[in-house]
């Protein structure tokens, strides 16, 4: 549905302006002008709303209305991505995790209704945001278990099981996504999981006095080295052996400090190197955001 941006739609006066603005977003994002990106994205969302309103009320074009939902999500994704970089640069790494999740949510709404090979950087963004998540020290999340007694449709407000409610949660209807509104909820438990519905509820160690830079050392390194929002990379973990200076206090023939009663050279001193994880950031090109062109530019 994002492919509609490759067309020219004369009956929608705002459509050409929308395309021009999206090109501006690409340019400003490439130039790291995040504040400008955010501003243009907001104006794109307004344009999409106007086009959608016309599609719903005047031209009665559901496909157009649904396409505008996807274009809106795309612009919001680029907006959140810019906020994400602003947050990173200002060193607010913990906050940046939440904004990254907002960006991912919008990208899901785009990808669900778009062929990922159709361009617009969709495939690249999907891979890129997945790699960005790996830079954070979050592997466990708190997630709630509930029993829900009433589920209503966000579009028709009927019970989702009402035979007259034809809306499937997650699908688009006249430019709106059907979602389920849960009511009469009974909370059961909170569990620690690695693959939650929502990754925003993170776990922190109480009394941890480290600074943000220390807690997010890998992310800090990444921002300093790769201050480019369109730079794709891949994070690889590999085992590496690190020299442990603590062993230097013992002589080779001293009793080993581990309590084995063996000589140090025949126990822990055999290998003064300890296994650790080494993170490797491999650069793999850039996100391709091809400017949208007018159809007439292709004519001979």
């Amino acid at each position, binding site marked *: 549905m994002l492919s509609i941006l490759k067309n020219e739609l004369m009956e929608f006066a705002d459509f050409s302006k929308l395309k021009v603005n999206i090109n501006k977003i690409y340019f400003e994002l490439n130039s790291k002008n995040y504040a400008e990106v955010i501003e243009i994205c907001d104006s794109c969302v307004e344009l999409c709303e106007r086009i959608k309103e016309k599609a719903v009320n005047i031209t009665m074009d559901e496909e157009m209305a649904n396409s505008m939902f996807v274009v809106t999500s795309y612009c919001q994704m680029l907006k959140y991505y810019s906020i994400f970089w602003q947050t990173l640069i200002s060193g607010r790494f913990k906050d940046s995790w939440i904004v990254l999740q907002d960006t991912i949510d919008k*990208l*899901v*709404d*785009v*990808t*669900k*209704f778009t062929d*990922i090979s159709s361009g617009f950087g969709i*495939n690249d963004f*999907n*891979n890129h945001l*997945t790699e960005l998540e790996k830079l954070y020290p979050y592997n466990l999340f708190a*997630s*709630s*278990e*509930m*029993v*829900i*007694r009433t*589920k209503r449709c966000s579009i028709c407000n009927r019970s*989702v*099981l009402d035979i007259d409610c*034809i*809306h*499937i*949660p*997650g699908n688009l209807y006249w430019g709106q996504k059907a979602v*389920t509104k*849960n009511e009469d*909820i*009974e909370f*059961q438990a*909170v*569990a620690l*999981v690695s*693959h*939650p*519905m929502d990754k925003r509820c993170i776990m922190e160690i109480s009394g941890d006095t480290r600074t943000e830079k220390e807690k997010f050392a890998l992310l800090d390194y990444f921002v300093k080295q790769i201050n480019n929002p369109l730079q794709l990379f891949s994070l690889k973990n590999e085992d590496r052996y690190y020299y442990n200076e603590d062993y230097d206090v013992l002589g080779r023939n001293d009793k080993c400090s581990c309590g084995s009663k063996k000589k140090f050279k025949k126990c822990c001193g055999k290998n003064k190197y300890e296994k650790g994880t080494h993170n490797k950031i491999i650069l793999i090109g850039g996100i391709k955001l091809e400017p949208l062109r007018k159809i007439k530019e292709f004519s001979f």
Partner: protein
Amino acid sequence: MIAIHILCQFDIMELLGYITNWGIIIMLEIQEASKPLKLYFDMEEFNDDTKERVKKADIILLPNFDIKDGVDRAFQPDTVTFYKYSIANKDNYLEIELFENKGQEKFLALHSFDIWIPLMYIGSSILLPGAINLVSSYVYERMKGRPNDEPTVHFNLLIEDKEKGKSKHLTYKGPIEGFEENFKKLDINRLWEDE
């Protein structure tokens, strides 16, 4: 236990092929079941309207019992979307119903991003390919927009052969890519052979 059940259906070379990137064996477990639907029909919790309504269905979605303290029964998290998706895709010709009194449906919301297909009952093995296709296409639809996610599919199927008077409980818990492949390898005719 898992290996034994899989070995009943496949040979050892096939089993080795089921070790995934995550290092876990894809689970398709088959167990004996005892007239599973009759248990539900015998329960006083369900009213006559409910029992009459589900009799006409090809696929019946069942609530799970005794899953949480204070909650007698509830459907799995994906039940609503799966049910509505099934109704919208009428080209599968399968009538589908929820085994629950109208207005008393309760649904679980679990913590993980896994795919929790509702407990399903089919009254004939002829319906098995259609039911598996339906679940496969639902899972495919559910994963649209999330090309890099790797959730686990949880699926329990009760299948009954009324002529033979036998029932089986099939359980799948594993990655998406192994779901259809596992069920395709299932020999329906051998399913009812005496162990």
